[in-house]
Every structure is written in structure tokens, then in C-alpha cells.
């Protein structure tokens, strides 16, 4: 298994107030799978994704990625995990507004210690692979929502991650554009064997592309669905 999550718990503490968000989540993800996690707002989906992405640390349980336990990693180890093992796509793209599309990708390559002479070519290839070869020098403000999300996907793929984590990647897009993004993710999953863990509200789309769909409710996985038509 590429990803083994066991009894994962997360409680936020502010002063004397403790807010439990995840109550012992357990599931595995095999290499090349397309997992969708669905659930209502506040069910703990984004928290789960942040923990898998190494952006946050769990209160209890284990997250094994390729055999390494994130719960035991130092902050430097988590940075390396974010740099090389996972690529993260956010609902609001989180592009650097002062940089062009290609610069948003090259900054990830710079953190990945890719030699400077290779970065431009590789970033251009990545942007071409998501259909943005004509938008390399545009800043985020000059791009449509769908284009900005494609730049974010290209950036997430910059350092050849094993898992792509997508947190509501279509949440800010119209349905036609959403379809395009979902199709892009499915293509990456099917053609390149990229493992995708996606959080979404869009259950029909999730059923269409996922190999498995997990339903999260109040911090627990309450349902696991294997769509008949989903997956490869």
C-alpha cells in the first residue's frame, strides 16, 4: 500500500477548549488509485487532507506514506514529504499573485533543487501537459479560474510526487470548467499512474472518476463505495 492511515485522530485546542475533528480514521490507498472523499462541511475532509499532506500533525494514530510515518517526522521531514512525495492542489489555487504561470511552477522546482537550467523547460512542459502552453507568461489575475487551477496542478506535479492531494479542486469553478479539471485529474491518474486523493462535494463527478469513494461524517468514515464505472 502506498498510503496506510490507521486510527487517525485530530483535536484542535484553543486555551481550555478542545475540538475533536477526526475520531480514528482508518483506510488504505493503493498505488495508482483515485480516491474521492466526500462529506458535508465540517466533517473533517480538509483536516484529513492537511494531515496526509504534512501541512498539519495528528493528535494520534499513524499516517504511513511509502512506509514512513508522518506522525514521527520532524518539521524538516514534513517539508521534504511535501516537496517530493505529495503535490497539493487547493480550492482557491493559492498561486503567488506577483509571479507568472511559469514562475509559479519554477518556484516549486527551485524548492525541489532542480538545476536552474532545467527549470524553465520542465515548467513549460508541465504547463503544456495541462493545456496552458499559451499562458506561460500570464499572471494569475490574467487567467480564468480553470486556467489558474491548471497552473496549480502543474505546480503540484513539478517535483514528480507519488500522490496528488486535491482539496475541492472544482469548488470555485463553474460546471463546464469543473468537468475539464476532473477530466485532467482522471487523465493524470490513468495515463501516468498518479495516485489521486480528492476531496469534493461533487458526488456524481466523484463516482465517475474514482476507484473508491469514502464518505466522512463527523470525523469518521461512515461509508466506502466502489463505483462500478469508476477507476481504470
Amino acid at each position, binding site marked *: 500500500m502506498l498510503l496506510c492511515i490507521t486510527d487517525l485522530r485530530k483535536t484542535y485546542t484553543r486555551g481550555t477548549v478542545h475540538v475533536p475533528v477526526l475520531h480514528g480514521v482508518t483506510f488504505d490507498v493503493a498505488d495508482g488509485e483515485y480516491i474521492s472523499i466526500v462529506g458535508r462541511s465540517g466533517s473533517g475532509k480538509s483536516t484529513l487532507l492537511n494531515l496526509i499532506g504534512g*501541512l498539519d500533525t495528528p493528535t494520534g494514530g499513524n499516517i504511513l506514506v511509502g512506509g514512513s510515518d508522518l506522525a514521527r517526522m520532524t518539521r524538516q521531514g514534513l517539508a521534504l514529504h511535501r*516537496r517530493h512525495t505529495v503535490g497539493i492542489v487547493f480550492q482557491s489555487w493559492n498561486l503567488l499573485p506577483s509571479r507568472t504561470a511559469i514562475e509559479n511552477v519554477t518556484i516549486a522546482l527551485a524548492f525541489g533543487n532542480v538545476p536552474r537550467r532545467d527549470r524553465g523547460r520542465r515548467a513549460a512542459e508541465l504547463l503544456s501537459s495541462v493545456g496552458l502552453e499559451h499562458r506561460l507568461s500570464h499572471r494569475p489575475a490574467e487567467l480564468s479560474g480553470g486556467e489558474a487551477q491548471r497552473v496549480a496542478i502543474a505546480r503540484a506535479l513539478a517535483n514528480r510526487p507519488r500522490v496528488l492531494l486535491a482539496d475541492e479542486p472544482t469548488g470555485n469553478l463553474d460546471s463546464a470548467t469543473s468537468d475539464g479539471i476532473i477530466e485532467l485529474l482522471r487523465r493524470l491518474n490513468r495515463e501516468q499512474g498518479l495516485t489521486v486523493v480528492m476531496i469534493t462535494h461533487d458526488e456524481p463527478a466523484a463516482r465517475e472518476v474514482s476507484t473508491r469513494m469514502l464518505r466522512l461524517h463527523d470525523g469518521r468514515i461512515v461509508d466506502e463505495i466502489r463505483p462500478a464505472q469508476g477507476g481504470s
Partner: protein
Amino acid sequence: MIFGDLFHLALENLWRTKLRSVLTTLGVVIGVGMLVSMISFATGIQRNVTESFKANDLFTTMEVVGRGAEPGSALSEVVQGSKDERVIDDAVLDSVRALPGVELAYPEVRFPATVRLGGKEARTTIQGVPLALGRYRPFDEFRYGRFFTSEDERAAVVSERLLSELGVRLADEEASGKWRRSPPEGTAVVPADSILGRDIEIVVPVLDGSRLAQGFLTGRFDAPFREEVTRLAVVGIRTEQGGFEMGSFASGVAIPEGTARSIPHFEFSNVWQALDATRGAAGYPALNVRVRTADDLGPTRDAVEAMGCNVVALADQLEEFKRSFLIIDALLGAIGVVALVIAGLGIVNTMVTSILERTREIGVMKAVGGSEGDIMRIFFVEAGAIGAAGGVFGVILGWSVTRLGNVVVNHYLRPEGFPPEDLFDMPPWLVAGAIGFSIVVTLIAGSYPALRAARVDPVTALRHE
């Protein structure tokens, strides 16, 4: 992330907030500029004093005086009673000349006089100098004329400054622009050749026995002196070549030692020397001694003191000067450092504000793989870039201030006939040190913001609006 990337990122970030970056850097520029100009001033004074010591051979010259013959010792003798004395006579002179480190020793012959030229007169000091002194500065080179050729030549070397007091300026020197102020009314601007060969009159007062006797008879002693006039040909003119000169040769008239002895004169120039002279001890007021190297000064001094004489060496004063310079350096440097520290606080303020504005950006960089070390280094390099730019431009500002200082000071010095002075010194260590210090201060100032940026929680940062 390699340094080139960090540097590129830092410059981009600074460029995005141009006005703020420029204002912050300006604070550093002013701090460094202050530091540089102040230390430059302190080191410049130190250099000038040391060089003038060297130029005037003060590291290799000393004066030997009799023990009990220090200025005013006659008064202390009256108060404290007599004490052992050592008179500087020919025996002492021969003993001093025989010392291994001594290159030249000659008795002091100096007296005040009035000098007349072309109907004008000026008070000055007449210095009798031995022929051997022609090998040394300032008598080894002459722009106009020459040194003496014999010990009893009826000749004089006059200083340009004395000529000015006598209403004469040299045409070539005037044309060089060194005298900013126009010559006073009645001053003649003439070629040096018209002065060389002309006679000057050296006028000294001497006691007139017949007038003194007349005074006893009449009870009036208002004029017991008469004027003794000696005519000497001007054979050389000394001009000031730059740097301030010390010692008795800077102004006045130098004449051959033998000629000086032939002119009747009082052996004193002030009331203390006059009182000392009344004791009637035969001998010279002092000996001028020149040693071969600066290292010979100490052993020679010890040997001379062992003879029972006292030694006055201006080189001793240099150590005192150096101690004073250290204090001045420290004080002036401290003012500059305070200015730089204030600039450092400006950097802290600017960068903390910048972190607040860039919280989301920091979150994004962490999400795509930036480590805490990377984030910290980005902010460090930004602070360092401010420090480097502030250091470089601060040095330029400091240098400009020193040039301006020189212009202002020389504007007032030159009309008075003083040669141009460079009051400041900017050695390479000061330039490199100022830039380095600026970078260190800004890195220290940037360490807190950098640490704070590195510790930003990525989840919180990504939600930050």
C-alpha cells in the same frame, strides 16, 4: 534551494515594495555614512599626525637639555633651593656625538629678531643651523634658491610665510592658486629671482653700555638698548609643500651656525629663559640630536640621560596621541553604531510588517516544499541585501561627506596660506569593515523576523487573507 535562487527571490520581494525597501535602506545608508565619515575623520587625523612626525623626522630627533635647565627651573630653584645641575657644554656635545646611534648633534642657536625687507618688517625667530643639516629635510630640496655653502656664509634661507608677512608673494606660487585670498593691499607679487640675492636686515636689540650709564646719571632707563643690524643675502626660499610642518623651521629665517654665533643676541626668547640665563652657567641652551633610525632613539636617550642630561623627544608624545586617538575613534564610532542600530530597528519593523503581508505566500511556499530553513534564509537574504546595499551606498555617502568636509576646511585654510589638507582617511579596511558591519547588523536585525516567518503554521497561513 541554492543561494542564487534565494538572492533572486529576495531581490524580487524587495522590488515589489520599492518605496518601503528604499526607505529602510536609506536608514542603513545614513547609519553607515555616519559611521564611515566619523571613523574616517579619526583615522585621518591620526594619519596626518603620524605622517607629520615622520616628515619632520620627529621619530629620529630629540633635544638634550641640561638637568635643572627645563623651562622655568630658575623659578623653582628660587622656591625650592639649588640642586644638582648638568650644563650642556662642548664636553657633553662631544660625548653625545660619540654615541653609536647618533648621526648628527649640534647646539641650539636660536634667538628672536626683527627682519626687514624693502621697508617692511616682521618679528620672527632666527635659527642657526649647521652645514650638515643640508642633507636633511627641509633643507635638502629647494624650489627656489639653495642651502648654505659654508658655516659662516653671510646668507639666509627665508620662509615663504615670512615673506608674506613682509609684503611679498612669489609670482609662481600665486599663479598656482594656493593663495585663495587676494594679496593684501601693498603686497608685491614678484618672481622668486627678484628676492634671491637681495639683502634682508636682521635687527636684534643689544644692551648699550653708554646709554645704561647715562640712565644711571639721569635716572631714566627707558631705552638702554640699541639696534644691532646684520645684512644677509637671501640664498633660498622655503615654500610649504603640503602637510603641516612642526618644529622651528616652518617659518622664520635659517642662517649658518657660524654666522648666527657672530650676531650678538640674548640667549632667551621668554622670561623663563631670561631668568635661567641670569644664573650665568656657561654652555648651550640645548643640543639638537638626530639618531640614525627610530630604534636608536631609546638607547641614545638612555645614554644621554646617564650623562646627567634631560631628553625631550616629541616621539614620546605620539604614544599619548595614540591613546587619545583610540578614545576619539571609540566615541565617534559609537555615534555611528547607534545610528546603525536605529536603522536595524527599522529593518525589524519593515520585515515584521512584510511577514504579515506575506503570510499566505509563506504558506504557499511551505505547501510546495519550502522548509523552515528555506523560508528563514529568504528573509535573511532580504535583510542581508538591505545591509549590503545600505553598506555600499553608506560608504559612498560617508566618502562624499569627507570630500565635502575637505572642501569646506580647505576653503578656510587656503586663504590663510596653509597648504591643502586631507583631513580624512578611508583605508580599504574601513570600506570593507563598514559594509561587513552593515550586513552583520541587518542580519541580526533580520533574525527575529526570519525566525518568525519560518515558524508560520502553513495551514493557518493558507487560510490567511
